């Protein structure tokens, strides 16, 4: 809560209190034994409490005093039995995880006693012990579960899965309509739980990248369905508070700035790191972003709220006959996703325009063929129709933010966040095309310009607690970004652990991203070893996994010493092959087959010693 408290101006706070009085909320009297500020503060919270919350507070203080007086916590009134709730999440970049954590708190309101469990840590017992289950599941790859979730996901789908009669559940699926297998993971889990005999307490929703609002609404409803009937009435009772439990620990680490509420920073540096003549274009971006509550750690991602190419915005508007409407063009540029061509969108367009040919296009393989290298503008131009602004906007989804692994340590660059952004460009059907966010920086921003950012924490890509642990950092292209942050952080903290960077790109001379900085780290000892794989310097292609294989003995040695292994960058292009190679190498040591290697790698992952930040 603290952040919200910080940012809301006083005047507004008082309003809240007024409004509370009107709706006869319980407020502390002016003569309460607190300073006026404290009274304000307390009221601003109390004013919005539900009966359950007040009951809990009553119980809390009663129990607390009792606890101080020694002796076990004596409830001031008869405790009310609370329903257990299991909140499961399958998450890669943290969206589903954040929803799960928020739900844990909301559950309290509903008198539910929630446990939050990552798919990575779940097992059959988790399920069979559960009474009520809420699942937040994201989909990755091409319709795959998030990597950490794969094992339990497969188990759940397997024959061995236990029957779940009597278990009540609800599933929320996160996804991106840009992908063919929209929300595949959530859908499969939802169907599977039912197949195993559990009863669906609330219907699944499949949410696109702009999920926040609907997710909150859905969660409220789902909790309502799952909550014990009595609570719905909201009769004020005292709730037993268990001080041995985690009731006191606020695991509330929700970032305050979000894609809906970004912080406006200023670009202080913008450099294409590739030497002229390179076939690559990778921008090092430094953003001055100072504000309370804007804080990140190496391993986190920074979200960026981009703007579309004005030229494209105009073309889209023109395609539907709105080219002359300045405000439409502006909205298209600033607010809407005008590049992604999704099947749902084609369907909607066909329905709206009553075009049978467009309807045909919405069919699976027709759509796949068309959308492979086309975008929204191609749809509008090929199946041209005049639309009203309302119709147009009705078809579009909000412009999603883009994530970038932070490339700086806040300790080394206070008040700044550095990003490393690969420009996405291609040409198809006679049109030069570009990625929205990457070309936003490459073509449409300059030093001094404003840019809207937010922090996307990633608890699953972190330096070892123990600064003496060796780290092996594997990354290709922009995948080195977090390692720059890691090494800066270790230097600032004077941590002595060995570091090994394995970097891959196309050409040595022009694509050796951050070369001078790696050289400094090598000289100072903060980096112990570097291996490079430049794929296009010689006739045969050389990739990072080959370097790993060549250095397998040393690598196993480092793992023996307790090294943490990190992989960052392109999933299809690199991370997958590296994953395979790592298990192969670990198999060597286990003198076993690939299975043995896989198992060893999973062990490392469970122990947090194999972490991936892939996209």
């Amino acid at each position, binding site marked *: 809560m603290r952040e919200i408290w910080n940012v809301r101006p006083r005047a507004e706070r008082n309003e809240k209190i007024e409004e509370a009085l009107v709706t006869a909320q319980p407020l502390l009297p002016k003569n309460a034994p607190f300073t006026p500020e404290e009274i304000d503060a307390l009221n601003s919270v109390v004013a919005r409490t539900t009966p359950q919350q007040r009951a809990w507070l009553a119980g809390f203080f009663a129990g607390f005093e009792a606890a101080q007086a020694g002796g076990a916590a004596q409830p001031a009134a008869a405790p009310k039995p609370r329903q257990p709730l299991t909140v499961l999440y399958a998450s890669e970049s943290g969206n589903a995880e954040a929803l799960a954590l928020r739900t844990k708190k909301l559950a309290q309101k509903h008198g539910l006693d929630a446990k939050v469990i990552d798919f990575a840590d779940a097992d059959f017992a988790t399920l069979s012990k559960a009474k009520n289950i809420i699942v937040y599941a994201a989909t990755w790859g091409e319709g795959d579960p998030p990597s950490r979730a794969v094992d339990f996901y497969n188990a759940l789908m397997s024959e061995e899965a236990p029957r779940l009669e009597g278990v009540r559940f609800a599933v929320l699926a996160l996804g991106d309509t840009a992908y063919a297998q929209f929300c595949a993971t959530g859908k499969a889990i939802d169907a599977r739980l039912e197949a195993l005999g559990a009863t669906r307490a609330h219907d699944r929703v499949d949410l696109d990248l702009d999920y926040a609002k609907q997710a909150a609404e859905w969660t409220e409803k789902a909790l309502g369905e799952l909550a014990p009937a009595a609570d719905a009435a909201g009769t004020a009772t005292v709730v037993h508070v268990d001080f041995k439990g985690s009731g006191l620990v606020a695991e509330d680490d929700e970032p305050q700035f979000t894609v809906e509420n970004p912080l406006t920073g200023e670009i202080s540096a913008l450099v294409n*790191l*590739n030497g*002229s003549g390179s076939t690559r274009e990778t921008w090092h971006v430094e953003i001055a972003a100072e504000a309370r509550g804007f804080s990140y750690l190496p391993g986190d991602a920074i979200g960026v709220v981009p703007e579309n190419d004005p030229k494209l915005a105009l073309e889209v508007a023109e395609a539907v006959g709105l080219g002359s409407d300045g405000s439409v063009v502006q909205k298209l540029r600033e607010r809407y996703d005008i590049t992604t061509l999704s099947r749902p969108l084609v369907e909607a367009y066909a329905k709206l325009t009553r075009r049978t040919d467009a309807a045909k296009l919405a069919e699976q393989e027709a759509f796949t063929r068309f959308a492979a290298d086309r975008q929204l503008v191609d749809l509008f131009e090929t199946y041209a129709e005049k639309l009203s602004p309302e119709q147009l906007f009705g078809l579009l989804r909000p412009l999603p933010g883009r994530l970038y692994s932070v490339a700086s340590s806040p300790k080394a660059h206070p008040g700044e966040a550095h990003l490393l952004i690969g420009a996405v460009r291609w040409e198809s059907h006679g049109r030069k095309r570009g990625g929205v966010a990457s070309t936003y920086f490459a073509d449409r921003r300059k030093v001094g310009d404003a840019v809207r950012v937010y922090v996307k924490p990633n608890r699953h890509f972190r330096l070892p607690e123990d600064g003496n642990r060796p780290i092996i950092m594997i990354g290709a292209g922009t995948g080195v970004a977090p390692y720059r942050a890691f090494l800066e952080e270790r230097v600032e903290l004077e941590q002595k652990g060995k570091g090994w960077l394995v970097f891959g790109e196309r050409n040595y001379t022009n694509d050796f*991203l951050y*070369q*001078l900085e*790696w050289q400094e780290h090598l000289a100072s000892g903060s980096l112990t070893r570097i291996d490079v794989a430049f794929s296009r310097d010689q006739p045969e292609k050389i990739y990072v996994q080959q370097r790993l294989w060549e250095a397998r003995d040393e690598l196993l040695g480092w793992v023996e010493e307790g090294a943490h292994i990190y992989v960052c960058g392109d999933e299809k292009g690199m991370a997958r092959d590296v994953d395979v190679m790592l298990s192969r190498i670990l198999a060597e040591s286990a003198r076993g087959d690939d299975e043995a290697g896989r198992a060893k790698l999973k062990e490392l992952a469970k122990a947090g010693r194999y972490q991936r930040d892939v996209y």
Partner: protein
Amino acid sequence: MTDKRSKNEFIKEASRQLRGTIAEGLADVSTGAISEDDSQLTKFHGTYLQDNRDVRGERSKKKLEKAYGFMIRVRLPAGVTTSKQWLQLDAIAGTYANGQLRLTTRQTFQFHGVIKTNMRRTMQAINAALLDTRAACGDVNRNVLAVANPYLSKVHAAAHELAVTISAHLLPRTGAYHEVWLDGEKVIDSSGPAPKDEEPIYGQHYLPRKFKTVIAVPPSNDIDIYANDLAYIAIVENGTLAGWNVAIGGGMGMTHGDLDTFPRTADVIGFCTPEQAVDVAEKIVTVQRDWGNREDRKRARFKYTIEDRGLDNVVAEVNRRLGYDLQPPRPFKFESTGDPIGWIQGADKKWHLTLFIENGRIKDEPGWTLRSALREIAENHPGGFVVTANQNLIVTNVPAKGKAKIEAILKEHGIAIGTDLSGMRRNSMACVALPTCGLALAESERFLPELITALEDSLDRAGLRNDEIVIRMTGCPNGCARPYLAEIGLVGRNPGLYNLYLGAAFNGERMNKLYAEDVDKAGILRLLDPIFVRYAKERQQGEHFGDFAIRAGYVRPTTAPNAFHADLNPVKVQAAE
């Protein structure tokens, strides 16, 4: 008494016969460079660490080190290659270098822009072509030149053979080259002692400086004997090779503003029989090894040894070491330094096509695909090639009926043989200079062609388009294109500014003289235009431009080998716009 020897002497001494820590340096992938000391040593292995100076400005901003790349120079005695070797070198250029081949003023090939991580592969590929790069640079006897085209006559063949023999005889014998580049792994490790007896001729310290040897067959002076430390001049008596005149002490390099350094033309000191020739080379080299200046590299070339010790003393010492006296030199006559562009027929009735290659640069450009053309010729024609000391190329041993095919290939790739180019362009040379040469003060190879185009307007107006006028440009005073032996010499001083020299002999016997300092393009045109006009009007029968420049009083003649800086009165040029 402190050791005043130059830094390089210590590097050589500590190098365990040119091994140094090159192997370790190659293994460090964090940088494309090698250590400064090692980069002195790699020269002996025929390769230089360079960086692309065109992009220096942007690199640190992009958090990148300099754009390092190695220049690799092949050892190619007398410039002779087979067609197969050509194809192999062409492949290397495309695979590991910048896609270009560079013919040098010393009859060989250079590759540019080979990155460190590809160095071993590249050296091995060169080795696979039955070629090497040993002693192509460094303080040793360099690639030995011989009059272009051994196939022209028996004497030409003898010159070629002598070049090959001397080159082999004076090669460093150290195993370093093989260890470092070819079989990689087993470099004798830094701890171990240097194999003592590895270098019977050079010893631990090699020579004080580079040493250059050439073999000429008059009347052609295409290899510019007077610019070399050691030169052999074929003496033909009643149709057969009687032996060789020997000349020593030539060299071009100097430093702007340092009068103790100067280009010097070689002195002819005697005559030796064919059997004696190799021994003569060895003894002369050992005299320079023992007498040369090892304290000041700027004055370490053989030419300065001769100036400091006196020619007679040097010759006496050579005779002493030979155990006999060189015979008195015999008469000879040089006519020109240029190449006869176009077809000529050899004694064996085979045809040979000399192609004009502007500044020796072999590459492909839209509509003008020289590299592809030569590759196609190499694929279709087994007769081989010869690189000339004028940066040109001879397609050798073409049977009469094969000529058409070769001309067809050239045509189809947009390549002109060069016979119809202006006499000045046909006789032009420019050194590499920017962007690869670390010592360049001004453009050279990238500037001379357009300068000549501009000069050709003046020549046309004067009616001199077809007259042969030797023009050479370098980006600094080191003189890599032998500018001081050109009728018009241009030597870079600062970006866009050149010293203009006039009055060298057409046949390369006499050096030119400073005519104007620090002139830019416009200034050069302004100064030369009126001289062309007068030359066209007032020249005597067969009088060459260099001789005329002296007779007309533009410059004084350089009368003695060491008189380059004497009798100067350069014209004052108002700083050109």
